[in-house]
């Protein structure tokens, strides 16, 4: 057992402060006020302190901490609910199995953080108890009059991010073990993705959220009643991944932002809500379309009467006869029965009714647009809605149609419109052809990475010969549509990086095709290998990406794992060229996931909307003194350059993202061959996207052997201009205790 099993909030503080010394927070508070207590509102502008004494830097980091606490609580509560259910159903002694003989390290995050080596469902209860205590403690920190220092808030955000990965891992290994999901399978099947894959001649049950337990109830009931071939069970957001991991007839509709378009398109006959990322006005939308709603989570009761203990026949009758718009049912098996029976009865009555306007009607309605610009000014993407409405009024719908690809379905345009125009419906209707032709494939969530895969790639990753691991994760708040995600994944898979996806980003990555009509998941293998594109699964499967990094340190490098966080994080930070990209991150969960990666020393990039997390963690490549590490062989301090340059950064465009990814994969431990490969990609992407050579190459060349063969002349000019001198390639560490021989 290592030195830090079950760390409390301050146990790993020194490690956090080392990272934060290098990657100082850059705050962009957005809101000048604090309104969290009744002393306020307090104006914290430009150095003013609030009534409690807090300044805007600490307040900004407090908001970051709160976001991470919400995110970690959400994943952990999800896992807790699932674990309760699974233990009730399968018992505490049910063995964990997430990969058979291919996985000995079944829970790398849990082992690393808690020291616990879980073998059964019951063992996971202890893990969650620890996680829950930590989240409670961290949330308490945000109370008025507790922490006052911005870096201590940041450290606690890191802590809660680490806990978030524990919570996620518990959830996914519990469901993978019990529900028969693919077990670390590189060849997990390809599953249907897109609205066009739904057989709309059948009753359609639309499941929204993240907790698959009610969906399992639906699928089980449909199978037992032998109607599984007569209904469609489809999912939106992460519950979709888990539906298809459980059920080969399940379909992924798409990410969170597809909720309204699918519903308004009239495709759903019953909606089942579980938890997280569910539109809170979905019941209002459903009522307009005569779609019964079943709320299936205590966390999201949406005002419905609790009918859990009522006879199914009565509930079914009430929903079919529209006596009630929806019900709350907290028994997943009853949810299954009610949903299937109601869908079968309602579908022939509804006949896929939708209330989208006809195309000619849109042209007519658009004439009432005042061109007030409020729709555009409310649109997160600044879409040119007034122009599109003007064109529609003049008879051309093509501009509205073009918006289909870029619209994230938030409906703020409609909320703002003084004429109450159903602008989102206009976009859905004019984009109908695109929508119904979305017939793609996604790799079914495979779960964890095998130990054997880690052994195969450990050496080339750590030495830099596989240029990097790119984790494309998160939500769908994309600045210019989802194609950017596909383009980025494809670019790096083609360059033989390992590309790991999860969540909504995994769906988006599968939503486009190459010139031969193949999706990414058909074009590239699903293994954790050079040029592989693997989908770990839903949100909670993100833990497997962190887990893979941890397993490289443990399995390949044979570093002790249990309770040994700091040493493993130091290893990952200095040696493993891994980068997270959350191009459309919007949620608090995404913040917590990112924080878990930061503490492991893995940099995370976000798209432009990610700037709204209000705080970046940025290194300064122009400050050489910031980039010293110890050489574990000698104890000497060695300058290794800005590798990686940032820990959390917003990028503006996909072109910038590509260059940043290549650069952020550079690590101090790269061999000369590995560094040369990484620099080749960095230079190539930079020249292609920026039209010029990078200006900072001298910071990354340690010996002339690092210089790519084909670029010697170009490098020579830059090295000469910057008075470059050869440097030692160290055995890098930030931890003095890892020095094998102390300097005399």
């Amino acid at each position: 057992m290592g030195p830090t099993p079950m760390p409390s909030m301050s146990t790993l503080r020194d490690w956090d402060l080392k990272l934060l010394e290098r990657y100082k927070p850059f705050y962009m508070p957005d809101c000048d006020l604090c309104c969290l207590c009744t002393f306020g509102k307090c104006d914290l502008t430009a150095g003013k302190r609030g009534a409690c004494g807090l300044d805007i830097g600490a307040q900004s980091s407090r908001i970051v901490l709160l976001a991470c606490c919400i995110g970690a609580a959400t994943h952990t509560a999800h896992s807790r609910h699932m674990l309760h259910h699974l233990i009730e159903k399968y018992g505490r002694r049910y063995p964990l199995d997430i990969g058979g003989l291919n996985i000995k390290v079944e829970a790398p995050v849990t082992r690393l953080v808690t020291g616990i080596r879980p073998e059964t469902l019951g063992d996971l209860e202890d893990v969650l108890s620890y996680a829950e205590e930590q989240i409670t403690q961290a949330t308490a920190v945000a109370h008025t009059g507790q922490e006052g220092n911005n870096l201590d808030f940041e450290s606690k955000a890191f802590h809660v991010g680490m806990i978030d990965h524990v919570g996620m891992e518990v959830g996914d290994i519990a469901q993978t073990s019990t529900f028969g999901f693919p077990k670390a399978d590189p060849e997990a099947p390809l599953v249907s993705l897109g609205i066009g894959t739904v057989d709309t001649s059948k009753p359609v049950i639309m499941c929204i959220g993240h907790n698959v337990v009610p969906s399992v109830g639906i699928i089980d009931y449909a199978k037992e009643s032998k109607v599984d071939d007569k209904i469609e069970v489809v999912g939106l957001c992460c519950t979709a991944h888990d539906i298809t991991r459980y059920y080969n007839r399940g379909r992924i509709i798409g990410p969170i932002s597809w909720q309204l378009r699918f519903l308004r398109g009239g495709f759903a006959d019953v909606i089942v809500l579980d938890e997280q990322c569910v539109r809170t006005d979905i019941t209002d939308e459903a009522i307009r379309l005569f779609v019964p709603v079943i709320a299936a989570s205590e966390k999201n009761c949406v005002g419905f009467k609790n009918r859990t203990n009522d006879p199914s026949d009565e509930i079914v009758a009430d929903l079919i006869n529209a006596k009630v718009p929806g019900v709350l049912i907290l028994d997943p098996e009853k949810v299954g029965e009610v949903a299937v029976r109601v869908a079968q009865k309602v579908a022939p009555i509804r006949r896929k009714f939708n209330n989208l306007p006809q195309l000619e009607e849109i042209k007519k309605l658009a004439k009432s647009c005042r061109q007030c610009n409020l729709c555009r000014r409310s649109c997160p993407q600044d879409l040119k809605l007034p122009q599109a409405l003007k064109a529609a009024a003049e008879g051309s719908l093509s501009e509205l149609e073009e918006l289909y690809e870029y619209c994230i379905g938030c409906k703020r345009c409609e909320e703002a419109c003084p004429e109450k125009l159903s602008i989102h419906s206009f976009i859905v209707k004019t984009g109908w052809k695109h929508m119904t032709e979305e017939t793609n494939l996604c790799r079914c969530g495979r779960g964890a990475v095998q130990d054997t895969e880690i052994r195969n790639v450990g050496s080339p990753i750590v030495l830099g010969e596989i240029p990097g691991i790119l984790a494309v994760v998160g939500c769908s708040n994309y600045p210019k549509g989802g194609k950017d995600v596909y383009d980025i994944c494809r670019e790096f898979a083609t360059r033989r990086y390992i590309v790991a996806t999860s969540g909504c980003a995994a769906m988006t990555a599968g939503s486009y095709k190459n010139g031969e009509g193949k999706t990414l998941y058909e074009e590239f293998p699903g293994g954790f290998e050079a040029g592989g594109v693997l989908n770990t699964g839903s949100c909670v499967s993100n833990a497997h990406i962190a887990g893979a990094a941890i397993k490289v340190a443990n399995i390949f490098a044979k570093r002790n794992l249990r309770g040994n966080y700091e040493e493993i994080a130091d290893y990952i930070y200095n040696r493993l060229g891994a980068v997270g990209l959350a191009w459309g991150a919007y949620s608090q969960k995404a913040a917590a996931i990112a924080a878990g990666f930061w503490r492991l020393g893995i940099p995370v990039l976000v798209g432009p909307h990610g700037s709204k997390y209000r705080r970046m963690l940025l290194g300064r490549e122009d400050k050489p003194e910031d980039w010293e590490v110890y050489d574990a062989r000698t104890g000497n301090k060695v300058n290794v350059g800005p590798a990686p340059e940032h820990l959390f950064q917003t990028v503006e465009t996909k072109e910038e993202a590509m260059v940043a990814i290549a650069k952020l994969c550079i690590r101090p431990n790269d061999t000369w061959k590995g560094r040369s490969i990484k620099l080749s990609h960095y230079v190539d992407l930079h020249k292609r996207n920026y039209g010029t050579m990078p200006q900072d190459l001298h910071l990354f060349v340690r010996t002339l052997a690092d210089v790519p063969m084909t670029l010697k002349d170009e490098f020579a000019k830059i090295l000469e201009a910057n008075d470059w001198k050869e440097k030692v390639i160290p055995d890098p560490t930030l931890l003095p205790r890892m020095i094998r021989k102390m300097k005399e």
Partner: protein
Amino acid sequence: MSCEPWQCAEVSSTKKANPIPKPEVAVALIKKATRPILVAGSYATDRWMEGRQLIDFLIDFARASKVPIIATAHIVGEFLKRGYEPAGFMSAMDIGNRLVDPDWQGLDGKGPYDLAMFVGMPYYMEGLIICGLKHFAPNLKTMTLDNLYHAHASWSFPNATLEEWAKSLTVMTSKFEGVQ
């Protein structure tokens, strides 16, 4: 022309930008600055006015005013294609992070900037960076050259049409031409 934040919900600032009523005022403020810089974002090629891209207006302005440009995102290549070499390029976050450092001596090492102008980034992102500067760079003034009002800046043009925007940028350029 209104001085409300372009995105309706961006109302959370207690200290709001002084509106720039006409381009001559902006010119006077720029002339008053000793170390101005212009940060140009990725929308420099997305925004079209009078058949020209924003980037073309910016190059004209920079050539006339001699204000150095720093390009964010990948946009440096677009400047180079047009025969204009920016003073530097880096991510928008990096430039923001450097501007809050009172010890940063600028791209040319000649001292801190006293005026940072911004133009052509996603509205919310530009607003956030400017907000960071408002709080953490007390010796720096900020100005936006967009046609969208940015409440967090020291000075901002009001919301304006593309035609008005083009006119403002053209007038600003003309006021510098032949002067320096």
